[in-house]
């Protein structure tokens, strides 16, 4: 789960990482209020779950409360990569002398948390790594020892020459690393980490990703859950025990298993169609799940045909078939359906489906071709 900048900064503040003063506003008036409380030049920043806010015009400087109100009214409601801005962060503008990059993230290759640091902050770290790899330090930390003092010294020495600034950087890194584990993050990023004219280090921006698998043990993050556009449907699907990602094609896919679901989407594209979604109904085969899946797919007006690809293992074919029949009877879909169903209780499933005149294919290739053909006829 990704957090907004202002939420990530809440976590930073709790962890003792210095951040600029600021508050979140939902209306231009609130932005005015916050700017006058701060009593100085502020930055108005769009709060959306996507990068590239600055480029899209979602980050603006404002000298006065009036200007903050004006800028907020432009930014609120703005569409940034499909995300509508509902909140802005109004925060102190800092007088800065340098911008660096600092993060803790998961290194899948070494199976260790990795600290990434660069004196070239304020731009995407992937870009820096490509253009100036010598300006990027990657330091892997064995999770059994945790962060050691020499790690911190190495990082601070890589970033700064000044002794006093180095000390501050070491403290920030320690707190960031502790937060990474305490909050079960997969990314804790400060970009930029700035030195102010007063010689203080502060986290000017904050980006945090929480490990979805760990959310169950963090009830305190419940309040951060919010969803926009397609995310709402994806969350609804999650509650029904489904894993769903919206795409923009016309073939609705309902599959059991994540790998097979991806392979099905790929096959749709291979044969000249476009998948409307990724949908994994999971391992156990409750007929209700199939109904929920059909509902979600049918709510998408782009869908011209539905393609089922079920490989029974723990998933029982007859359960899925029962679900399909129930869904067809209650939802009365207008779009055609092509079904591939093999595996556990395949024969039973075919019998159930034949009663509602649904044909079952035994190969993945056949069903995908059929679904594309049906979508074109519709």
């Amino acid at each position, binding site marked *: 789960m990704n957090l907004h900048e202002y939420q990530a900064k809440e976590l930073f503040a709790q962890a003792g990482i210095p951040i600029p003063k600021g508050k979140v506003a939902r209306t231009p008036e609130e932005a005015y209020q916050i700017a006058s409380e701060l009593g100085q030049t502020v930055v108005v920043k769009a709060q959306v779950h996507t990068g590239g806010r600055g480029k899209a015009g979602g980050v603006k400087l404002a000298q006065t409360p009036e200007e903050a109100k004006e800028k907020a009214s432009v930014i609120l409601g703005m569409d940034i990569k499909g995300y509508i801005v509902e909140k802005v962060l109004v925060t102190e503008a800092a007088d800065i002398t340098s911008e660096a990059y600092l993060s803790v993230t*998961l290194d*899948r*290759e070494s*199976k*260790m*948390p990795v600290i990434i640091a660069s004196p070239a902050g304020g731009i995407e770290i*992937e870009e820096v790594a490509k253009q100036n790899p010598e300006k990027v330090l990657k330091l892997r930390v*064995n*999770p*059994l020892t945790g962060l050691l003092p020499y790690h911190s010294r190495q990082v601070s020495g890589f970033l700064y020459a000044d002794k006093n600034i180095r000390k501050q950087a070491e403290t920030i890194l320690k707190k960031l690393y502790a937060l990474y*584990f305490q909050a*079960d993050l*997969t990314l804790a990023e400060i970009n930029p980490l700035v030195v102010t004219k007063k010689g203080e280090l502060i986290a000017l921006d904050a980006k945090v990703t929480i*490990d*979805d*698998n*760990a959310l*169950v*043990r963090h009830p305190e993050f419940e309040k951060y859950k919010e969803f926009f556009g397609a995310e709402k449907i994806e969350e609804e699907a999650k509650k029904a025990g489904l*894993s769903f*990602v919206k*795409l923009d094609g016309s073939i609705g896919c309902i*599959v*059991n*298993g*994540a*790998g*097979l*679901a*991806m*392979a099905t*989407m*790929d*096959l*749709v*594209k*291979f044969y000249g169609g476009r*998948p409307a979604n*990724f949908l*994994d109904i999971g*391992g156990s085969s409750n007929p209700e799940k199939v109904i929920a899946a059909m509902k979600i797919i049918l709510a998408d007006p782009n869908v011209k045909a539905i393609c089922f690809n079920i*490989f*029974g*293992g*723990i*998933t029982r074919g007859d359960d899925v078939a029962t679900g399909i029949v129930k869904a067809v009877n209650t939802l009365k879909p207008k779009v055609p359906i092509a079904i591939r169903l*093999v*595996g*556990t*209780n*395949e024969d039973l499933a075919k019998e159930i489906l034949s009663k509602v005149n649904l044909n079952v294919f035994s*190969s*993945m*290739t056949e069903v995908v071709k059929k679904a594309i053909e049906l979508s074109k006829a519709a």
Partner: protein
Amino acid sequence: MGILIGEKTKVIVQGITGRDGSFHARQMKEYGTKIVAGVTPGRGGEKLDGIPVFDSVKEARETTGTDCSVIYVPPAFATDAIYEAADAGVPLVVCITEGIPAADMLKVYHYLKTTQTRLIGPNCPGLITPGACKVGIMPASIHIPGPVGVVSRSGTLTYEVVYNLTLAGIGQSTAIGIGGDPIIGTDFVDVLALFEKDRETKAVVLIGEIGGTDEERSAAFIKAEMSKPVAAFIAGQTAPPGKRMGHAGAIISGGSGTAAEKIETFRKAGVPVASTPAEIPALVEKVLGKSERRKISFASPKLKKKAAAVKMDGFKGNHRKKTPALAAKEGRTVAHKNRRKK
């Protein structure tokens, strides 16, 4: 013979009294896996279909001499179960559980390095050496013994590929799902090294997906270290960046980990990549050596009959002796075993 598990492997089931644990313990036993014990804390002394249940892995290991544990416990208790098995000295631990936090797995991974234990998973379907031993949740009946090792990050996609191989008369030495999480105990390279050493395995099918760099490392390993041919398939060509595709580990992040990158890397390393799962058997036949290919085409009518039997009857469960064709398959396996004993 295959890798990691065989007919002599003595398996215990952690979480045997749970819904999933009991169901799959029975399925595995029916397939012929030696299930010697189960473990559920507080339920020691009970029995499940004659399988003794112990309070701890230590007791179970001391009593039965188990060399493999399979874990079916909820995510909140799964890492404890892995540590317990490792500390009891179980050499192979297979964790089926999905949903373990990555931070917990980081610690498990590095702790296990200090022990003799190999972990498969988590969030995996387990592994099967057809005709000898199944440890996991896959539908056993789609597998037939043969020369091809299968390794994958996925569950049902592995079944799909195995099914296609079987229908084409190509059997499997061992089929193993290493898991869909970002942090797993055994990765592609580990399994490829095992297949390279295994005498029965003549070729390998690797099924990868978006996310991480495990496929890239495999390509380098295959080029540098492997004499046996490998064919690959990569799922997720249509996956959008930044979105998790079901598996916790299947995500394109910061523009890296895409299917296109992985396919390109494999092709550069001389590893053919199938465009669709249905293409895999033909690709495998191509990469297999001449002698192996002859064996397959030689035995083809017979094997295809068996494959057809798998399709017709195999799915009804593990009732392996109920049809003549499956009895024949059984017979072959037995004859095969006897041959080796001589």
